[in-house]
């Protein structure tokens, strides 16, 4: 599952920070605790020296110090021969009557020998209430610090990455808007991050290269189509001449006629390809106020023979003029393609229904088949039923026109056994 870069880096950061700072905090606390107790111990050891000095000075001192008094030490006799002069420290809770509760103390257990070698046990103690308080506060502070650092790191990481990734987002959006064939549609974005600048530069170069290749291809197709026209025309006229020879038999004549038909198909195909390429090169630029209704009527007249041959029932609903700023030649191509299809793919005696209103033109024809798939029918060379007359480019030309000149849209629908193509204004 892909997550944002921020979350991705945050995950690693959080784990690392939590672990590292936790270890550091624990070590730090341990060191400080050690130092605090070292301090206390040094104090106790100093006291020991003073007590021993006093014991040597004042012979009654030992006798007077057999219980913890104000000075918080006591001297007790030890067994003879016992080694007492080692220092040991330990913590202990001692009940304090004046506070009526147990308080923490640190106790040094040691001893010394008198002039005559008599061993005595010496216990010195000091209250560690203050130090323990200090250590508790230290622990709390460390915990707070730890939490603050962890949260800050996460927040900062989040904010910094948001800012840093902004140019990247813009590049992504730009790429989303880019359309092949329009090199201007990708706007380069400048940023202060070197990697994104590099990305930008590379994308721009790539687009330029692609556009160049694309332009070459277009020119190639156009040139090829042009070149094809001449040899085709020559071949057809030679065939015509041959067919006028008086001494031909039926078989040869019909074969020549078939050859000519095939060549004529080739000519039609070539012209369509040329039209397509010109449409996509935006070579139909001259626009004017075009009245589609007038054009439709003209086309219906032109195709009257075909309509009659198939005994089609023509129904025309005129609810106003469909007028739009457009290229007249393209409008003619658009309408004639749709009309030709409606006639060609109609049943014998079927219905041809045309309805025109100021913002919509519908061309419908009845059919014996099922609904067509709009995803496929506009593709080049897609033919529903194998029709040797059709070159499969008619609807592809229609789509190319509506895609490159977006003021008119085309849509297909299937209603009550009729294929319906709808042209709509797209302001």
């Amino acid at each position, binding site marked *: 599952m892909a997550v944002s870069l921020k979350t991705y880096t945050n995950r690693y950061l959080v784990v690392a920070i939590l672990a590292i700072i936790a270890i550091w905090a624990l070590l730090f606390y341990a060191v400080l605790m050690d130092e605090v107790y070292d301090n206390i111990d040094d104090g106790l050891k100093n006291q020991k020296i003073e007590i*021993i000095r006093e*014991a040597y000075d004042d012979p009654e001192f030992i006798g007077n110090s057999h219980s913890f008094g104000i000075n918080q030490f006591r001297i007790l006799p030890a067994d003879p021969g016992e080694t007492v002069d080692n220092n040991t420290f330990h913590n202990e809770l001692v009940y304090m009557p004046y506070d009526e509760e147990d308080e923490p103390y640190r106790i040094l257990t040691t*001893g*010394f*020998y008198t*002039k005559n070698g008599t061993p005595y046990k010496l216990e010195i103690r000091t209250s560690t209430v203050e130090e323990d308080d200090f250590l508790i506060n230290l622990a709390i502070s460390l915990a707070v610090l730890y939490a603050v650092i962890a949260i800050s790191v996460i927040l900062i990481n989040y904010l910094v990455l948001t800012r840093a990734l902004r140019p990247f987002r813009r590049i992504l959006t730009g790429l989303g808007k880019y359309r092949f064939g329009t090199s201007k549609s990708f706007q380069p974005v400048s940023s202060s991050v070197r990697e994104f600048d590099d990305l930008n530069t590379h994308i721009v170069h790539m687009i330029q290269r692609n556009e160049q290749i694309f332009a070459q291809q277009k020119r190639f197709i156009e040139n090829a189509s042009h070149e094809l026209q001449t040899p085709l025309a020559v071949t057809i006229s030679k065939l015509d001449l041959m067919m006028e020879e008086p001494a031909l038999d039926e078989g040869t004549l019909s074969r020549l006629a078939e050859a000519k038909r095939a060549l004529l198909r080739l000519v039609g195909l070539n012209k369509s390809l040329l039209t397509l390429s010109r449409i996509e090169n935006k070579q139909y630029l001259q626009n004017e106020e075009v009245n589609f209704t007038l054009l439709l009527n003209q086309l219906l007249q032109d195709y009257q023979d075909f309509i009659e041959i198939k005994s089609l029932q023509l129904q025309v609903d005129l609810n106003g003029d469909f007028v739009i700023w457009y290229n007249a030649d393209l409008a003619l191509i658009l309408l004639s393609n749709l009309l030709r299809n409606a006639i060609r793919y109609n049943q014998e005696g079927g219905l041809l229904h045309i309805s025109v209103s100021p913002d919509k033109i519908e061309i419908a024809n009845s059919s014996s088949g099922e609904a067509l798939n709009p995803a496929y029918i506009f593709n080049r060379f897609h033919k529903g039923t194998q029709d040797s007359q059709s070159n499969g480019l008619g609807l592809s030309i229609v789509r190319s026109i509506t895609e490159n000149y977006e003021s008119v849209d085309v849509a297909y629908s299937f209603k009550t056994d009729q294929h319906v193509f709808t042209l709509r204004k797209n302001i």
Partner: protein
Amino acid sequence: MKSIIKGLLFVAVTLTANGAQAQKVLKVNQLPQPAQNFIQKHFDARNVSHVIEDDEFFSSKEYKVALSDGTEIEFDSKGNWTEIDSDLQPVPQAIVPNNIRQYVSKSFPNNQIVQISRSSRKYEVELTSGIDLEFDSKGNFKRIDD
């Protein structure tokens, strides 16, 4: 390769064999001369209980002398004293450097020096009370060792 291992084993065995003979009992007159003079001057040669020569492999020879009253004296390989441990009695005053003696009598009156040891870097002294003191090689007080 095999011969190297064998050689190493041989050396190791000889060393350990030698180590077993680390301690040897000597007579007083087998000590280095400075040691004998020292004992004669500050103690009494007749009070010598036993003498041990200590020869560990990785350190130089040491001599340990025990007197009948419990005092122990250690000498280095040249016969200079390195430690005197008098149990609970004071060590001979004469061998204690002056400034050490002065310091002890000033800071710890009524205390005797019951043990003293020295190295090239420092002196260590234990008092009757059990307190340990450390001095530098010239006898200046460094710290209380506890």
